[in-house]
């Protein structure tokens, strides 16, 4: 019986959006950024979200990561309706279930790579040595174990983003949300990052949703959805 339940849970999509609408007020005008959006992302998927600027991609990402709330609709991640959580509960949920990879890395310049990676572990009950061990394991996974003591200014852009990815996976989250992860990198470094994301998806089973403008980057994903004027589609708008 319990095996059946596990199987059923596995078959459920990890990310489930139902009728998500997001309205913004700009002066007296109300802008509908997301329009009754439905989305299901299976566990272990690698989804690329493409679309022109202002189409609502980032808003969607923020809602998926619990950084923003929908005006209407339901956001259910791994069976948890996160749109109903309080601000503090949502913070706790983010710490446990989501890893963010930012376009501009957002590393603390005065901390070493290892210290940057260990930041999310401050919210856990792990001991100092255990945190260090986990941070080093994450850095090893992204191939930067020999750069652990380096500060961000001593790393290349690609290496900085690898540190950003190590920080995102150090708590072993279910979902990785990547906002233009290669947007600030040259092609070679960008390819390395995309290979790393593919590795995390295929070898480590991470579910990844990646916002990108770059079709080359989107091609690394298992599937691509296009966003236009707050609506998701399988094909880019002509």
């Amino acid at each position, binding site marked *: 019986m319990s095996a059946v339940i596990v199987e059923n849970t596995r078959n459920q999509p990890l990310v489930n959006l139902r009728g998500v609408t997001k309205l913004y007020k700009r002066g007296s005008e109300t802008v509908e950024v997301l329009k009754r959006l439905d989305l299901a992302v299976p566990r272990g998927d690698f989804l690329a979200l493409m679309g022109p600027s202002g189409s609502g991609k*980032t*808003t969607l990402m*923020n809602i998926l*990561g619990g*950084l*923003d709330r929908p005006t209407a609709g339901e956001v259910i991640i791994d069976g948890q309706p996160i749109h109903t959580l309080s*601000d*503090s509960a949502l*913070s*706790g*949920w*983010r*710490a*446990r279930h989501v890893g*963010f990879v*930012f376009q*501009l890395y*957002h590393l*603390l*310049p*005065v*901390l070493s790579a290892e*210290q940057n990676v*260990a*930041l*999310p*572990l*401050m*919210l856990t009950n792990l001991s*100092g040595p255990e*945190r260090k061990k986990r941070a080093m394991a994450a850095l090893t996974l992204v191939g930067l174990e020999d750069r652990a003591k380096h500060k961000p200014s001593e790393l290349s852009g690609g290496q900085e983003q690898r540190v950003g990815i190590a*920080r995102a996976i150090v708590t072993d989250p279910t979902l990785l949300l990547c*906002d233009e992860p290669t947007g600030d990198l040259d092609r070679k470094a960008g390819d390395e990052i995309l290979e790393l994301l593919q590795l995390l998806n295929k070898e480590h089973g991470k579910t990844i949703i990646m916002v990108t403008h770059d079709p080359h980057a989107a091609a690394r994903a298992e599937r691509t959805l296009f966003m236009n004027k707050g609506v998701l589609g399988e094909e880019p708008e002509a």
Partner: protein
Amino acid sequence: MNALTLIFSAYRRRKARTIFTFLSVVVAFMLFCILAAVRQGMMGQVKISIAERLDTYNKISQGTPLPLSYYDKLTAVPGVTAVVYFTGYQGYFKDEKNKFQVAVTNAEQLFKVYQEFSAPPAQTQAWMADRQGAVAGPLLAKRMGWKIGDTIPVQGGPAQKDGSKTWYYHLVGIYQTTLPTFYQNFFVTHYQYYNQGIADVKNQNVVGQYTERIDDPRHAMAISNTIDKMFENATPQTLTQSQAIESVSFMRQFGDVTAMVIYVGIAVFFSMLLIIGNTMAQSVRERTSEFAMFRALGFTRPWLVGLVLQESLLLICTAGVVGLILGYVAARLLAPSVGNVLQTFSMTWSAAWLGILLGIIFGLLAGLVPMQRITRLRVADALRRA
């Protein structure tokens, strides 16, 4: 990796700004210490001058001597429990730079009238037994390198009958006192030795002032009147008043200095608040995207607010403690130069605690503006602005 690592990383981000802010707080606290010492110099004088003691001077002026013969009459006044008289001179030890005040008194009555002073019984006995004996204040003995048993040649005194101006004393004790620095620098000697040795006849059998200890401070006015009435028809006449009233009159000469000290202190701390508040606001503004990143990682708003408040508090309190220590040292260094006017000029523990309390309050206040910025932070927007 803990919150302290993050706090220090924030300080390291703009080292020059952190150092200048730190120094401005240090200076503010040093000023606070000096002002507190001035206030203590003013107020402490009143506290030390207890109402149980009366001072009797020559009515013409405080510098004009009184005859020694008044002593017996004063001790006979009802309500007077002990009488001590003083005269003295400024002498020096070996070098004119080593000046100090030689107090000449009837030693056997001194500790009865001034109960804030004491010496071990054996030393007191030795002093009473030796008319050439002297006791020194602990600071004076330390400064001059004297030990009990030393013979101290004090130069620069009044001429003796043999023409010498060097007076020899046996150091028989080091007195202790709970009073501030100024009171720890006296050299106290026997009147009998001085009176028999001094050459100038005019200065024999006279004293500079009498101090009476009385049984009840409520009788101070009546006893003062009795004393002055007793010498009304004598030459010279006397002027007697309680030390407490004397100190208050002395204080009044300066106007309301205490209030001024408090106002200047408030102004100093207010300036410090503006400096720290501005520094913290700038620091948080520069790190807006970092705070957004922290929020994205799962750190709550209260956690980040706590971090900023700790950052502000740690800076103010550390700099405050350094400022208090330096202020204490500065007050000690300044004490000898202002000691003649403000004998109780010193930094007190109560002022130090008040300084620490003010540091905590101002540290919290300085964190208020940046705290608001964090509570209003829109994570999604801030991440985009980086």
